[in-house]
């Protein structure tokens, strides 16, 4: 494998920025944001340079490594702090630094009134560095460092506006749920170390051919737990909605484009484990399928624009996880959807930020409406992202999502049909709720109060949105030309099995998907564009009466056939989300706290009762030793 000495700069640049901004303190208030943006862009530049270098080498030599130093050496166990840049990580590097830089630029303007803007940029740079470490580490242990690092940066950023207690609670909740996932990762690392004797990707890959299936399954399941925590997948999904408390650029960068996709990265990176452990792989698929439906249904019920987008993110990552769980056939598509999603979802979040910027931080979509007229650029960029996410050809989402749906259908047997139909249904619901967002925000009637003065965002904010919108339009097309991305990733994720039985031809799937999208859009348009929306006084203009009546009929029909059960299910899921999962988290915390308080009572303060503990302890010790001696 080719070694390099320049990989470290990818990480060093943003890390340096974070250090400077934090250490220099208020002195760097004036120029801190510029430095941070420049360093992030510099890192992107290094990434581009690495890509060009990589392209110039033959396929077999594209992956390069850099050993930084020998990190741990306990007995025979050696872990180097080393970096690995291959075809998979370069995709992430460019996504992270590219989108990251755009969001830096956007934040310069978005955060310009915040007195702690410098600190915000320091955290952003810290996040970029940690995320790069996550995708560049050459072993699970190095990945773990980045994994914890992005966690830390994410808590700092979610809790950035910590004036409100709810925000601190949100970051705490995110912490607890992520902690469960982190435990999964640390278990996976330790099991891997104990059974395979190594934790580097190359070592585990080599050992996975000989290792027992049980051990690999255990590692796989633990990795999946880790992925569900970080990527907000069922059943650890609840934190993502609350994480929207953070500033909107953070939501765009961390909770849409990069950090939450780390779980997908982890699974694709560990393809050799999942390929050898079908049980774990099946679990991955199930988690993906459940989450994509779950997120989509939750998305239909949210009125908060950011929470609706967050639910959508959850659902889209469900697609990716589903793709990653389909084995070599799906890894590349999972990554492709991840990349396209990075563009359109980040763009939409920035759009949402722009809307909030124009609407005095109002987040309730029921208080929007007709913003198209006031924010044409935001409307355009958001609209392009919208077309991409619902999968209208030739926008990016069409290519990537259809590929996953198609692969799901062709997974074979009942499993394939089930997964395919779920994915298809998910696509319809996606179309519905995204149209709802679009309509409520931009095209329906004005529902905001008189003191709102919607206005377009400044240049620095809309340029990143525009660039991301261009990405939403073009990337899908680019990635699929001549199966470019699939071929690109093949050395990492393995060859697709050719010649399997094909259930549905690509054209059929595309057709079905389009029908699903059209149904979803139609329902949403009829209900929200043409129908009444709460908090708006009904306007009894006679010309529209008939149409309104017709709508009413359709509504009744919808309600009876689709909406009622749907609403009930949605309500149930949302309730489950809030009460059960939330309750579980709170329950765990409360139990720990309660147990702690109860046990604390043993600390009576009386030296004599402490002596009694010692006496009883001695008895237990004697008895325990005696029992085994017998």
């Amino acid at each position, binding site marked *: 494998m080719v070694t390099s000495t320049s990989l470290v700069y990818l990480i060093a640049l943003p890390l340096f920025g974070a250090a400077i901004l934090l250490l220099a303190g208020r002195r760097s208030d004036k120029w801190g944001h510029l430095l941070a943006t420049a360093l992030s862009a510099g890192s992107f530049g290094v990434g581009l340079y690495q890509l060009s270098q990589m392209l110039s080498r033959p396929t077999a030599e594209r992956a390069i490594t850099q050993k930084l130093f020998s990190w741990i050496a306990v007995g025979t166990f050696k872990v180097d702090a080393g970096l690995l840049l291959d075809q998979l990580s370069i995709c992430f590097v460019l996504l992270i630094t590219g989108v990251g830089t755009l969001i830096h630029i956007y934040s310069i303007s978005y955060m310009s009134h915040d007195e702690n803007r410098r600190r915000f940029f320091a955290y952003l740079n810290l996040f970029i560095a940690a995320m790069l470490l996550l995708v560049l580490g050459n072993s699970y242990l190095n990945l773990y460092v980045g994994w914890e690092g992005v966690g830390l940066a994410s808590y700092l950023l979610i809790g950035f506006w910590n004036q409100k207690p709810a925000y601190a609670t949100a970051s705490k909740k995110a912490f607890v749920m992520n902690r*469960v996932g982190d435990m999964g990762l640390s278990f996976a690392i*330790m099991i891997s170390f104990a059974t395979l004797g190594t934790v580097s990707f190359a070592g585990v890959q080599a050992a996975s051919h000989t290792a027992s299936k049980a051990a690999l399954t255990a590692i796989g399941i633990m990795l999946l737990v880790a992925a569900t925590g970080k990527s907000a997948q069922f059943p650890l999904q609840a934190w993502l909605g609350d994480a929207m408390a953070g500033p909107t650029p953070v939501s765009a960068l961390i909770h849409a484009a990069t950090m939450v996709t780390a779980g997908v990265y982890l699974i694709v990176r560990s393809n050799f484990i999942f390929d050898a452990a079908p049980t774990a792989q099946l679990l991955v698929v199930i988690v993906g399928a459940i989450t994509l439906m779950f997120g989509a249904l939750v998305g239909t019920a949210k009125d908060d624009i950011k929470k609706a987008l967050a639910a959508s993110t959850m659902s889209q990552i469900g697609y990716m996880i589903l793709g990653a769980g389909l084995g070599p056939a799906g890894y590349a598509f999972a990554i492709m959807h991840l990349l396209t999603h990075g563009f359109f979802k980040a763009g939409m979040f920035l759009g949402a930020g722009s809307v909030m910027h124009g609407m005095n931080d109002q987040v309730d979509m029921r208080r929007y409406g007709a913003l198209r007229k006031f924010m044409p650029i935001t409307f355009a960029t958001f609209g392009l992202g919208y077309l991409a996410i619902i999968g209208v050809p030739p926008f990016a989402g069409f290519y990537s999502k259809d590929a996953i749906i198609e692969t799901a259908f062709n997974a074979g047997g009942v499993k394939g049909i089930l997964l395919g139909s779920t994915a298809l249904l998910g696509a319809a619901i996606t179309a519905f709720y995204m149209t709802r967002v679009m309509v409520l925000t931009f095209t329906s009637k004005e529902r905001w109060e008189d003191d709102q003065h919607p206005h377009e965002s400044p240049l620095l904010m809309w340029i990143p949105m525009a660039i991301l919108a261009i990405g939403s339009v073009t990337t899908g097309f680019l990635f699929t030309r001549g199966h470019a991305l699939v071929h690109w990733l093949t050395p990492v994720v393995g060859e697709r099995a050719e010649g399997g039985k094909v259930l549905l031809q690509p054209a059929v799937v595309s057709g079905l998907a389009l029908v699903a999208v059209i149904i979803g859009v139609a329902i949403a348009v009829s209900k929200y564009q043409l129908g009444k929306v709460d908090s708006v006084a009904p306007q009894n203009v006679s010309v529209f009466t008939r149409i309104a009546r017709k709508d009413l009929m359709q509504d009744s029909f919808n309600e009876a056939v689709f909406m009622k059960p749907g609403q009930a299910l949605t309500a149930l899921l949302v309730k489950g989300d809030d009460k059960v999962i939330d309750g579980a988290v709170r329950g765990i915390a409360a139990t720990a706290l309660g147990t702690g308080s109860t046990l604390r009572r043993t600390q009576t303060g009386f030296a004599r009762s402490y002596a009694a*503990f010692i006496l009883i302890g*001695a008895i237990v010790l004697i008895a325990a030793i005696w029992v*085994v001696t017998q």
Partner: protein
Amino acid sequence: MDFTAPVLNYALLAPILIVLGGALLGVLIEAFAPRASRHNSQLFVTVASLVIALSALLRVRKQVSVSAAMGSITFDGAGVLFQASILVIAILSVFLIADQENFTALPAAVPGSDEERHSLQTDMRVTEVYPLTLFAVAGMLLFPLSSDLITLFVALEMLSLPLYLMAGLSRRRRLLSQEAALKYFLLGAFSSAFFLFGVAYLYGYSGSITFSGIQASIVGGSGNDVFLLLGIAFISVGLLFKVGAVPFHAWSPDVYQGAPTAITGFMAAATKVAAFGAILRIFYVAFANAEWQWRPALILISIVTMVFGSVVAISQRDVKRMLAYSSIAHAGFLLAGVIALSKAGLEASIFYLFAYGIATVGAFGIVTLVRDSAGEVTDLNRWSGLGKRSPVIASAFAFFLLAFAGIPLTSGFIGKFSIFSAAYESGSTAVLIAGVLSSAIAAFFYIRVIVLMFFKDPAEDGTSVLIPSGLTKTTIAITSVITLVLGVYPAPLINFIASSAFFIR
């Protein structure tokens, strides 16, 4: 009657003797030097003797001997590592102890009396803490090297008695401090009675009080093992008391809270190293062949200790008590290294002890700085918003907490990882699971404090951070740097430990 004169290898005993010499010099200074010059000369003598002892130790670090003191101590690689860790921690702690604000001016004065007020006004100080610290350090240096039960017992008392005394010398809240001393003393004496009873049974079992003699009896014993099990159980009570393992832990929160903070830091860090050094030696050398007898009991205690410490720490409202419970949890983690009973376990334990000790001294050093007009503020609620007022101090504290939690890029992560791996390798899956679970629980309360410091508004009751004195600043800076370096680039230390971590018999 023939009598052969004993031979002592003074080069190998030099570290202990130098520290004891420094202590005696300190006593003489107390007796003869004028009061005004005592503090500075004591500080100088203390630091100098510790540094000289460390260099004397490093000079002989490659030597190995079982007969350095007629078989009473064993000088080997692991012993050198323990002694070096203790000396480094002691030097850093002395810098904290040098801050006058920690200690009462006149211990004999009744709290609240005129005499106390006068003594505070006249700027008196208890300079006796320096020789006491040195005596304790000498006992700690001896403890992990002892290879017979008498020396072990004498060393145990030698490190304990000064600590009992120093626990009662706090400047503020003296009633609490004296109470801590009383509790520590009574329970310590109680547990050392158990220890001695164990010594008696081990002697009865093997007819010898040297570790090698006991080991030989276990291998070739002809009777049954009842006296052995009694001996192991009772000795373990004494040793586990010192490290604060459940259910012998109850003293530690109270004593940690009541004692002067600098002493708490010293005690928490250095005593753990010394006591675990002794535990490791006795279990690895004397009891290794009776492994199947004591291991299940120790696994039980280890798991209970780590879970108990982590869970109870959550509900603590006092920073010193929280650190006490955290140290209980860490005792449980460290017992995993004893259970491993392998070279990897020994190496991991030594690394963990050093890393934990350093971070502990640093954390308590920061606790001494957070004050209001009435002295240190240990109520966690009043630490809220500290990050806004003193970002550097709060960040350093947060960093130590992350190290305790075992977050990557801190020394704690490497320590936890290697110790749990060693335990798992030796077949203790339960310890691994309990360990990872309880470190996840533990992370909760560490992060809670971080959230409190950075994400809450400052309390409006005048809690402020003192501008640290030069020495305290040095300690905090050095401990932070070591904690960071050991997390990022621990390989040199790990290699050094690997090359010299062994016990000879």
